[in-house]
């Protein structure tokens, strides 16, 4: 979706109880914050190390044990309880057998039994051509062939199957929900917090409970994917319907149409493009769950990624990760092209903006590179138009060879199972083996060249920034830190975020993991600072120079889509298992979104303003620091907010590379039975932390962002 987030104002205008009349920033806020800081440091100096609520790794609290008890009960009941067995069990078996059946006909085909790879390819080409045009067809063909040559045919198609099934279910649930939310404020107020939790809660935290309810396998993978992919669709649908111009709706109403007619004939058609964006984002989110899904035996490309991680084979993990990235590009571009085709001529809603400043990850509307998305529709529009009848005739005619191909693929082994090309010159370079060897060699070279430098950098940041900050935030009585957070929330955002802060602090305290939460908070803040430093530098460069943008953007896209597991091992080799590594993993994940937002903000500064400033003869540096950055302040605030939430969503991965604290507890709870409850509590604590930070940032943004 290349809806360049042109000036992000629409973001703030989503009706997520954004403070409408933000009080003007008090001039004394800065001074008051300083007072808080001084009091805080004094308290830290005096009360250091007391009442920190630190909990040893293997210790649990009553709440954790209580969660364990519930788990045990569910497990015991699972066999014959009407709900778990009857309802969830039936849903699970139905999903499992459905996916199994599709797999048997598309990906894991017994030769001679059903169409083989060649048939699947031919039919996919025909379908893409019908729906999305020639360029998309070329792309689909290239991606599918790459999957085949790289030996990822079965896994790649499995990923496609699981993703598409999940998206279809998302649409069935999400569209009505979004419509209901746009029509009733109360529904919206009830559902929105649930969506917040779904997006903020780390997937590891609910992995075990879901596996408990749905058993392992495709069903569980699909449910996991649903939880993560549904919110963007619902939010964007609601946003789309709400942003249909008021006077249009009014006009409709004045003609005396019923509510249903209004919805069907005015709102839905006008919001169609936005809803398609929602579906597109839903698809991307679903795809990003591919690796996690593999942990519960979900079929797909996550499996080779996880398998490669076990043997620390970066190359093999990268090849599978590349498969996921390519599928993302393929789906994104094809759905975009298809939607542009189906849109009635002239009705082109441009930027939709971000679907809400909030929402765990706004799943950037602008996730994929320009070259991968934009011009598809243009290409098809420029073609000669056929009459509907003629078009049908042409499509019918080209269906014939596709069917013939499909038929032959049931007859010949070579067309049924993707041939092994490792013996063929040139092509063998991109089969899994050699390709992963190249990547491994490259990684080794980079790691060897950089280890010395990176270690110095790590030690510097850790001792100058991380250790002092962590000490100040966690090595003191919990109530001091709680008061500090409360004061900051109040001073920056007013009483509303302060109220949220109190509630979230109570939850964190209740989980018994206050100390760990504060350590996690420290790492989150340090990571966010680094993210913003990088994002501002890169974003300004990209915003000012189109060429820089074209060069950098594909890398950003790659980092956003590739599973974090892939770069975990090189990160470990470079920085060892430390908190800093965890921070770097989070930075790698959050920089792309923040950079893109900054770049769009800088680009969005009115050219007249820039021109006027230039005429006064200021230097380039002055232009950036005095004009472009201040004018893009809103984008900066948005980028910080998003960067922060993205960082937080990587806490679990961070726990696996030395981050410790909440992230580690979640992973541990997932694999160790007796620590299940503690892991779940850690998941809740992260969610509370996320909601708290988001609200503070959002209200502060509303005050200072304009």
């Amino acid at each position, binding site marked *: 979706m290349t809806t360049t987030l042109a000036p992000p104002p629409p973001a703030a205008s989503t009706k997520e109880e954004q403070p409408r009349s933000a009080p003007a920033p008090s001039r004394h806020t800065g001074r008051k914050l300083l007072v808080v800081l001084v009091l805080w440091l004094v308290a830290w100096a005096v009360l250091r190390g007391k009442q920190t609520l630190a909990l040893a790794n293997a210790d649990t609290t009553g709440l954790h044990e209580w969660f364990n008890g519930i788990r045990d009960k569910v497990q015991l009941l699972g066999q014959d309880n009407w709900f778990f067995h009857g309802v969830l069990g039936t849903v699970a078996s139905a999903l499992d057998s459905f996916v199994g059946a599709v797999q048997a006909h598309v990906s894991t085909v017994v030769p001679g039994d059903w169409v083989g790879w060649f048939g699947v390819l031919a039919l996919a080409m025909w379908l893409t051509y019908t729906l999305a045009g020639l360029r998309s067809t070329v792309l689909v063909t290239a991606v599918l062939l790459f999957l085949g040559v790289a030996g990822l045919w079965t896994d790649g198609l499995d990923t496609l199957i699981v993703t598409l099934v999940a998206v279809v279910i998302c649409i069935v649930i999400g569209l009505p929900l979004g419509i209901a939310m746009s029509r009733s404020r109360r529904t919206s107020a009830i559902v929105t917090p649930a969506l917040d939790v779904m997006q903020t809660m780390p997937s590891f935290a609910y992995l*075990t409970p879901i596996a408990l309810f749905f058993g*392992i396998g495709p069903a569980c993978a699909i449910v996991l994917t649903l939880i993560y992919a549904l919110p963007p669709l619902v939010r964007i649908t609601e946003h789309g319907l709400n942003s249909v111009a008021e006077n249009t709706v009014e006009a409709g109403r004045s003609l005396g149409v019923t509510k249903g007619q209004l919805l069907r004939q005015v709102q839905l058609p006008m919001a169609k493009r936005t809803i398609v964006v929602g579906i597109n984002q839903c698809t991307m989110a679903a795809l990003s769950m591919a690796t996690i899904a593999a942990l519960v*035996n979900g079929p797909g490309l996550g499996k080779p990624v996880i*398998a490669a991680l076990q043997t620390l*084979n970066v190359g093999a993990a990268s090849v599978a990760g590349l498969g996921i990235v390519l599928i993302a590009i393929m789906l994104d571009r094809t759905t975009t092209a298809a939607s542009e085709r189906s849109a009635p001529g002239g009705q082109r809603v441009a930027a939709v903006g971000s679907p809400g400043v909030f929402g765990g990850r706004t799943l950037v509307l602008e996730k994929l590179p320009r070259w991968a998305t934009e011009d598809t529709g243009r290409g098809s529009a420029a073609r000669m138009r056929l009459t509907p009848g003629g078009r049908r005739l042409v499509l019918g005619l080209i269906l014939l060879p596709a069917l013939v191909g499909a038929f032959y693929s049931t007859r010949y082994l070579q067309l049924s199972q993707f041939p092994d090309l490792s013996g063929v010159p040139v092509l063998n370079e991109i089969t899994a083996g050699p390709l992963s060897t190249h990547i491994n060699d490259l990684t080794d070279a980079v790691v060897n060249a950089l280890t010395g430098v990176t270690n110095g950098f790590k030690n510097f940041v850790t001792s100058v920034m991380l250790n002092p900050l962590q000490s100040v935030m966690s090595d003191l009585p919990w109530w001091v830190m709680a008061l500090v957070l409360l004061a900051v929330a109040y001073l920056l955002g007013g009483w509303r975020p302060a109220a949220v802060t109190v509630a979230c602090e109570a939850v964190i305290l209740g989980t018994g993991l206050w100390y760990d939460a504060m350590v996690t908070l420290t790492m989150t803040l340090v990571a966010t600072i680094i993210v913003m430093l990088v994002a501002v530098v890169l974003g300004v460069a990209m915003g000012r120079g189109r060429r820089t943008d074209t060069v950098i953007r594909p890398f950003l896209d790659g980092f956003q889509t590739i599973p974090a597991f892939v770069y975990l091992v090189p990160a470990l080799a470079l920085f060892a298992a430390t908190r800093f590594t965890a921070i770097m993993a989070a930075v790698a994940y959050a920089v792309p979104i923040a950079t893109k937002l900054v770049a769009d903000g800088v680009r969005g500064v009115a050219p007249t303003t820039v021109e006027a400033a230039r005429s006064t003869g200021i230097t380039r540096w002055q232009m950036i620091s005095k004009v472009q950055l201040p004018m893009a302040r809103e984008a900066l605030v948005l980028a910080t907010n998003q960067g922060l939430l993205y960082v937080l969503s990587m806490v679990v991965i961070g726990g*696996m590379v030395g981050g410790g604290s909440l992230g580690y507890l979640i992973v541990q709870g997932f694999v160790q*039975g007796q620590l299940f409850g503690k892991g779940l509590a850690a998941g809740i604590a992260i969610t509370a932390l996320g909601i708290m930070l988001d609200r503070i940032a959002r209200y502060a943004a509303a005050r200072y962002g304009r």
Partner: protein
Amino acid sequence: MTRAPHHDPRTAADEREALSMPRGILRLPLVAGAAALALGLAACGGGNIDQSGSSGSGTAGGAKCGALRIAVNPWTGYVSNAHVIGYVAKTKLGCTVTYPDVKEEVGWQGMASGSIDTIVENWGHADLTKKYIDEQKTVVDAGLTGNQGIIGWYVPPWMAEKYPDITDWQNLNKYADLFKTSESGGKGQLLDGDPSYVTNDEALVTNLKLNYKVVTGGSEAALITSFRQAEKNKTPLLAYFYDPQWFFSEVKLVKVNLPKYTEGCDADPKKVACDYPPYALNKLMSKKFADSGSPAVGLIQKFQWTNDDQNAVSEMIANQNMTPDDAAKKWVDENPDKVAAWLS
């Protein structure tokens, strides 16, 4: 990667029964005709349609095997066990083997609910044993794997060479300064790691009065990468690790001897001051599978090999980039006697 079988060549009765199971992994073809075909073939029994393509090297035994679902836990040693057993079951018994990837706890759950038949390398798990074997009786023990699980503190070989007395825990404090890192707050760092294992390390450090801090690495990858870097760059490292582990065939880590383990010295987790007990790794089966009469039941019960055997297969998978099935085939071809003993 593993390919899911197209048809479950179970008996038709099994199919019906499985349908009523809550979470059975069923792959019913959508098209009615294909479904009928599948059931028809399944009813014939033992027809190994999954092996098309190759000419089928199976010397299928008399008894029919059917589907065998071996859980695969996420470490390479386990993968070796699973694929060697799976390879033998497939080629010698004609089973249709699938390898669901799951974490340990989830694997136990799967056996209880009937979506998994067996776990072929189990590390203790007293709590799960109690719950599923003693209380629920949904899982049964299937004998030892022959592997000795050793958990402990290890240093890279260069350190053991340079500081020979480091392998005695009483000298650890002497070297604590070497192990200082950005994470350990002035003390020596003991890198802990894999979240799947219960460790006593925090208690050990306290009770043995060691000037060390336990730092969580967070994953097996973190531990192995750290050891690899430590040996290559000759940097100090003390970390929790375990054998059997393919990494031993790459870097021969040296174990630090903690006070000797005696029966019951680890009874109170807070007061532990002794080494980890040696684990006799075992295999597990779901009760239902054990009663099914499949010939694979006997194979799994009789399967036994040594740590060296396992590390050899793991090394092929991890370092030589072989697929688990290829590695299993190579080992099975080279060790016909051992395999024959499992099938007797």
